[in-house]
């Protein structure tokens, strides 16, 4: 991209760029609209969820439209962002995840007060602050959209901050002591991570003289510096920020506290949207610093070590958990490790398989959180309290079991297919490069599945096997179970014919 441009050229560029970012413009306008409408007391609160869903659906439609129009990457805003199939696919995922989050929020207890008597403090507060809640949700989705499109270090930083700042507030949305603690921890950890990342970015800028990390200059300069420890340090610092966003070890300790205290829909949202956005930009950035060709510093090994640590810490810490939400926090850390495996392969199909994993991960995460919230609303907040639920609420328990089986990665669920795929690309990568660390990762990753089974089965184990008295009487035809059924069916269908999704993912051309 030309750096020096006349004003006219710049205006022309901006004009040309607008159609490419229509979904993002829509989201921006929408979130402002919701904020403004929230100030008007005459507007009923019920309007906000559906406006949000409509905005996200429109954004998804536009994104789909852009997908159909262009098969080549389209640059916008002088190389700040780029619309390519890789980014577009992620953006679709974010929009769908956003819609699912809104559905989860509307399904939370506040909406079922009449059935249950007392109102839960958490959801009541969401009620009170609805417009802000949805505006923040949209802000995170917007940030995620921008992050996966970013081709520029500053753009990446700004989008990441947009996600982070909105997330800090969302994390505290339960307005409890715990929520405030989680939010503050998140904030402190996040700001330090951002600072480190920014420092890394500035060193990289100093080393290469460009902020555009897909630029040839970026690659050639790094190639020249391939053995400079400064380059390695700067790269590590920059990566640290992304690791923080995807809750990869050692940047993960904030997650359990935040997950425990935040409202359930927000956790589901956190474990999907910011994480996948982080994985998206990480794939790009790693490719950029790796593109310098053979370097003294092996980025593949760095990522492998991080993936091994993430998998091990996430899985082993999850073993000791007694609350479903904390368990899911560690599970989400461990799942980041699996997503990283797809990135580590450094192969085109590795990226594609990672996208498949990401899609399946989204479905199974929402499936599990749907029922975590469902049971939480009924008063089941610790794992032992699930005892005997299998009989009292058969279908919700069975659906939840499918979710856990999928997260473990056992057939016949798409979770197995996804694991099969990413580990295939890792084998392939080992076959090409012959690096022992990849084999270690392969074995560690798969053996971790055994550990994972142990804790993923804990809730179904209490639900089906432990005998317990539960006073609940479930209404079998709730909307949860319909949504749950849809998610369960998609998990099963994607196992029996993964081609339905891979057909789309195959069209994705991941280039720097």
């Amino acid at each position, binding site marked *: 991209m030309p750096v020096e441009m006349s004003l006219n050229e710049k205006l022309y560029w901006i004009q040309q760029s607008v159609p490419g970012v229509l979904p993002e413009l829509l989201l921006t306008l929408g979130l402002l609209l919701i904020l403004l409408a929230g100030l008007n007391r005459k507007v009923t609160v019920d309007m906000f969820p559906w406006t949000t869903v409509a905005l996200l659906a429109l954004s998804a439609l536009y994104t789909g439209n852009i997908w159909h129009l262009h098969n080549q990457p389209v640059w916008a805003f002088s190389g700040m962002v780029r619309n390519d199939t890789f980014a577009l696919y992620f953006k679709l995922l974010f929009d769908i995840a956003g819609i699912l989050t809104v559905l989860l929020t509307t399904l939370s207890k506040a909406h079922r007060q009449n059935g249950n008597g007392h109102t839960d403090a958490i959801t009541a507060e969401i009620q009170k602050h609805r417009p802000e809640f949805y505006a923040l949700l949209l802000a995170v989705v917007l940030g995620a959209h921008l992050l996966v499109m970013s081709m520029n270090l500053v753009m990446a930083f700004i989008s990441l901050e947009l996600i982070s700042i909105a997330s800090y507030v969302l994390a505290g949305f339960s307005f409890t002591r715990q929520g405030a603690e989680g939010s503050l921890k998140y904030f402190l950890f996040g700001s330090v991570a951002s600072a480190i990342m920014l420092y890394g970015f500035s060193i990289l800028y100093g080393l290469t003289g460009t902020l555009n990390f897909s630029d040839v200059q970026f690659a050639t300069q790094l190639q020249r510096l391939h053995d400079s420890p400064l380059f390695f340090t700067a790269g590590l610092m920059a990566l640290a920020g992304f690791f923080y966003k995807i809750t990869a070890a050692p940047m993960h300790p904030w997650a359990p506290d935040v997950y425990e205290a935040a409202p359930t829909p927000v956790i589901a949202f956190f474990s999907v949207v910011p994480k996948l956005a982080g994985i998206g930009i990480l794939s790009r950035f790693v490719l950029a610093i790796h593109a310098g060709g053979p370097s003294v510093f092996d980025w593949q090994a760095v990522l492998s070590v991080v993936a091994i640590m993430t998998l091990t810490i996430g899985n082993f810490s999850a073993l000791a958990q007694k609350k479903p939400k904390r368990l899911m926090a560690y599970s989400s850390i461990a799942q980041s490790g699996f997503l990283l495996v797809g990135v580590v392969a450094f*192969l*085109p*199909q590795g990226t*594609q398989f990672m996208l498949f994993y990401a899609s399946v991960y989204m479905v199974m995460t929402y499936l599990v959180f749907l029922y975590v919230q469902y049971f939480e609303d009924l008063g089941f907040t610790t794992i032992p309290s699930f005892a005997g639920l299998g009989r009292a609420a058969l279908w919700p328990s069975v659906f939840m079991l499918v979710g856990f*089986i999928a997260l473990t990665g*056992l*057939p*016949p669920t798409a979770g*197995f297919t996804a694991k*099969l795929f990413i*580990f*295939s690309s890792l*084998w*392939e990568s*080992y*076959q090409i490069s*012959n690096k022992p660390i990849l*084999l270690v990762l*392969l*074995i560690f990753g*798969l*053996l971790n*599945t*055994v550990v994972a*089974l*142990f804790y993923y*089965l804990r809730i179904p*184990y209490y639900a*089906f*096997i*432990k005998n317990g008295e539960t006073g609940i009487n479930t209404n079998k035809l709730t909307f949860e179970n319909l949504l749950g059924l849809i998610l369960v069916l998609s998990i099963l269908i994607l196992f*029996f*014919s*993964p*081609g339905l999704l*891979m057909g789309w993912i*195959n069209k994705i051309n991941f280039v720097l």
Partner: protein
Amino acid sequence: MQPYLISLLIFTPLLAAFAALLLPAETKNSFRVLTLAVNIFQLLVLVIMLRSWDAAGGLQFLEQRNWITLNLGSWGTLQAQYLVGADGLGLPLVALSVFVMLIATIASWTVYKNVKGYFTLLLILNAAIIGSFTALDFLLFYLFFEFMLLPMFFLIAIWGGPRREYASIKFFLYTLLGSILILIVMIGLYISVHNPATTGKLVHTFSLLDMSNPNNFISNSIFDPNNARMLGPWNVRQWGFLLLFIGFAIKLPMVPLHTWLPDAHVEAPTPISVILAALLLKIGGYGLARIAFPVFPEAALHFSSFVAIMGIVSIAYGALNAMASKDLKRLIAYSSVSHMGFVLLGLASVTPEGVAGAVYQMFSHGIISAMLFVIAGVLYDRTHDRTIANYSGLSGRMPAFTVMVLVAFFASLGLPGFSGFIAEIMVFLGAFKAPGANGLLHESFAIVATVGLVLSAAYYLWTMQRMFFGPFDLKGGITADSIYDLDKREYGMLVPLAIIILLFGIYPQPLIDIIDPFARHFTETVLNTGRNLGVTINP
């Protein structure tokens, strides 16, 4: 040849399981009758299969449909098929499954807790077991293999004994660990193997038939036999064999990976013990014969002594443990460990006799262990006590039962005239012949293994003497009026099992005719390709 028979066997129970879900839970008998009907239907299908079986051997009843075909751009195509068939290895085990599942259903008649859930899981398990024994596509096999775990886990964990939770989790974790090792190799294999039938494009296939032919390996792929890279003490293909071996040995189970088995058996309800011993253990042996040996023949030859020694250790250690067991079910469980050691020894000999003996042993042990666990169940139903020391002189009160126990014990200890004898003598023949015929194993192996026979005679005869002979006496608070002889349902289970044991002990030819072509083909291909590849890899 009817190309849909195997699908009928696999999908009828699945459909029935679905139907069972829709039936109201109160109609308890409907689930029992439905399952029994499925079993009888499968028996009919099996009869048709046996009648149309081509005595020349080879893969028959082959069904091939595309299942997953994924185009992955420059990397090629991923292909998994619905590929099922039966040969001299699969057919005896399918026949065993159909028969044992029928016995298990009859044994399940006395399950009263959550009947609907129980029989639904039993039907799913049925489909998964038959699927595992017929799948010729690795992914399909893996699907059935894993799909067996969940029903089994719940069947032990919900309907089991006092320590069922511990036992079921242990069973699940051990088996999952094994299947993860298998998964690692499966992934490596499918990226290394292409389908030769498709020209012009690269099709990565999961077909076990393609994997068994070394020409189908993509050059410079991870498991390429012409370019096997070293990884520590062994090359990658040897590692692949070892991982598969350990994965299946956990299932078999082989000492020292057997510790889940006694726990699972003791806690599982009688019909589940029957299925576990008679069928699930066989999947370990089946996997070795179907996958590990043919796919990595040169590694199999390289490790044959190791495999045989592990087999002998299992035979001896299992027998010694059985002798020390105080619980009847635990004794039978350890005797299973001991007898499955013969499968390892037979396969490791890579001689037609040894391999045929291994397959015969799987079939025969399936029937015998089913009978033994039914016997343990009969006693447990009456007294809720399986402690051997608490019984004495039962023969006076339960004459018919004692006869059945005699048949089962004698069959299990390998007395001539019972099916166990034929299997074990064939394994010994193979093991004795191997050093001269193909240079594998050592002469002493077979001699050491015969000690196992003596030990099993010892623990069975000792148990017999303690429990059934001598003066009638009961300890541990068992009342004498709880002891009564067999009822009709129990006769219905034990008599057919005894007949089959005697039949295949006295006239083994029909079964040998089915197994023999497979055993000869297996030996020939493993030896030939193994030696050729061995030369390429270690010139």
